[in-house]
């Protein structure tokens, strides 16, 4: 283990355990470099697997760590990272209009996603490819919206994973309403059939009124909802200190429910804490807020250029805290997986990426009439007339049926 890696990791943990930030208590220079702008006063960062791959016990969030569990989480993260990288490449090659990378947040997302039970409901923002994976959404179904085919290809009811929400923070209120419905339906309790809802949002979203109102409503109606904030330190170009003077998880206390800060790059900690939080909600002790303290290793989207607003030292420091590497180190060092396992996962990831790529290229452009579908659930003669108008217009072309618009 190189000395500076260990030192940097210590800095992260020390900073996370110590300081307030924002304008009330400026971070030290090395913390600025590490991107640790909003940090905690409580000794709270929950870690179970250290950045060096050392397994720690956490008294409050016990987790039975089996080789199969860790292998599975490793596989999840590698596969998700692989198709995420392919998404970036497809955008660069002109096959996608946009891609929203999750690089660096695999631990935060797989941990939370694998904590869910089948009946639980998830409301994502638009970067939750890892959670989608855990909900059984085929990764190729994420391509449609970024290729301009549709606004969401998967069936959100079936997957119990809502469509991506692009307006920042809207989904938090929708999630709270859904969770209120779970409660009204009598689905809160000890039974295996008990349900909870989890909603995902970022550090930037915490400034939105909808997130505030979502927390007010969730508390007022005892909704079984987990507010899962991935604090990846950056809202496009704005550091988290623009959003808050206090560590984000501490806001929960003022709404009257627990807030926990978890090492978002520690998949085991994210799993254990989210499982605990969902159980709390299922048994009537919701809501709970989780702040997964992580880092956006790539740009906000493929349209963004982070070189304009952050130093590469910062990204380099966070590389040493990678969510996948620590799991790999743990598996390898303890003899829980061999080269064949790692090679097998890599091969599976490459196959997935190839399928992801080919499906993307093969995605058919929908018929123009698609734009009139499902605008309303009930008949709408006005819209039918407009559709007929468009059909007549398009039929006037010699090569009617194909539209060239690029």
């Amino acid at each position, binding site marked *: 283990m190189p000395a500076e890696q260990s030192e940097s990791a210590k800095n992260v943990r020390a900073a996370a355990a110590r300081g307030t930030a924002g304008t009330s208590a400026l971070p030290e220079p090395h913390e600025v470099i590490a991107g640790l702008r909003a940090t905690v006063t409580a000794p709270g960062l929950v870690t179970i697997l250290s950045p060096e791959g050392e397994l720690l016990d956490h008294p409050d969030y016990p987790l039975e760590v089996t080789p199969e569990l860790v292998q599975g989480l490793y596989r999840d993260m590698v596969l998700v990272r692989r198709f995420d990288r392919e998404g970036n490449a497809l955008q660069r090659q002109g096959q996608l209009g946009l891609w929203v990378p999750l690089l660096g947040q695999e631990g935060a997302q797989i941990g939370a996603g694998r904590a869910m039970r089948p009946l639980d409901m998830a409301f994502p923002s638009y970067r939750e490819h890892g959670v989608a994976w855990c909900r059984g959404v085929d990764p190729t179904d994420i391509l449609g919206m970024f290729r301009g085919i549709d606004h969401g290809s998967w069936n959100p009811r079936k997957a119990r994973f809502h*469509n991506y929400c692009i307006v920042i923070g809207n989904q938090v*209120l929708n999630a709270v*309403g859904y969770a209120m419905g779970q409660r009204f339906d009598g689905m809160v309790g000890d039974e295996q059939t008990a349900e909870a809802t989890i909603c995902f949002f970022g550090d930037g979203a915490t400034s939105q009124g909808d997130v505030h109102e979502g927390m007010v409503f969730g508390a007022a109606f005892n909704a079984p909802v987990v507010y899962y904030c991935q604090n990846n330190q950056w809202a496009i170009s704005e550091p988290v200190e623009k959003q808050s003077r206090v560590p984000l998880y501490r806001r929960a206390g003022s709404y009257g429910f627990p807030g926990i800060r978890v090492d978002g790059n520690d998949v085991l900690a994210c799993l254990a804490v989210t499982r605990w939080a969902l159980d709390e909600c299922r048994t009537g002790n919701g809501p709970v807020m989780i702040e997964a303290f992580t880092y956006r290793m790539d740009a906000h989207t493929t349209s963004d250029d982070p070189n304009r607003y952050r130093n590469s030292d910062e990204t380099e420091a966070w590389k040493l805290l990678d969510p996948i590497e620590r799991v790999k180190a743990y598996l390898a060092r303890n003899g829980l997986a061999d080269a064949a396992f790692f090679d097998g996962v890599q091969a599976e990831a490459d196959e997935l990426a190839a399928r992801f790529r080919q499906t993307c290229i093969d995605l058919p452009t929908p018929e123009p009439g698609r734009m009139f*579908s*499902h605008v309303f659930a009930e008949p709408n003669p006005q819209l039918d007339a407009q559709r007929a108008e468009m059909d007549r217009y398009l039929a006037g072309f010699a090569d009617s049926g194909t539209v060239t618009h690029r």
Partner: protein
Amino acid sequence: MTMMTVAKALNLALRQSMEDDAKVLIMGEDVGKLGGVFRITDGLQKDFGEHRVMDTPLAESGIVGTAVGLAMRGYRPVVEIQFDGFVFPGFDQIVSQVAKISFRSQGAWKVPLVIRIPFGGGIGAVEHHSESPESFFCHIAGIRVVACSNPSDAYHLLRQAITSDDPVVFFEPKRRYWEKGEVESASHQGDYFTTRLRRPGTDCTVVTYGPSVAVVLAAADAAAAEGRSLEVLDLRSLSPLDLNPVVESVRRTGHLVVVSEAPRESSITSEVAARVTEEAFYSLQAPVIRVAGYDTPYPPSRLEEEYLPNLDRVLEAVDRSMRY
């Protein structure tokens, strides 16, 4: 048939909808014990319980946004926005989620949500309590917008809105809440999201909706006394518009006046004028004339009589059309 006020008819529609379907919920500010500031939900919490008639925290985006989640869960929330001018914090949820979830999810989700909004002026209120924001909502694809003008329509339109699988923004003419009329409340059937002929006539078509219907009917009485026959149509459905009855009427009269309290620019009166011009150009013997609120913020109430379309302004517009 029973005589009742618009307020009572709305209350009855809510009550019967809740009796018919256990998934119907009411949410809003002060809708519980108080029965709403206009008493539209009077007595409902007492009879249906706090879980079905919910006083919410004071946040319109929260009310609409959580109602969306409840609708996704299979409920039929009817939310009350206390006054027209207070809907705007919830506007983002209406535009971005309520209206688009069906389209985005390719029909996997429906959002059977009703957003009730008391609207319009004429009650001597302070700022933000007299507005007519309906045109904003008509511009949003994916929601239906309706307005009632009398007790019978208040009842039937609300019953239909609550059973609709589409989101409906439901405008209630607050200055008509206490006006009485006959309501057939034994059952609700049929489509009320249609333009309704209020008074047949032969000389000039006057189209309106909501609180202005009574104004236009009074103008038609006055015109009749002078030997002029106005045909009065009540749009009821503001989006989508049921325009065929209007076009058909204009083909007979050749004259069209459109009346609304809302500011004139980019409004429902603009839309009706444009579309009738497109569809009945050769039948028109005069340009379509609009009588509307002025393009100013809603004025202090001592000036609202001058702001609101009244009987004289309607008759003056009819005169101009007929003189053309």
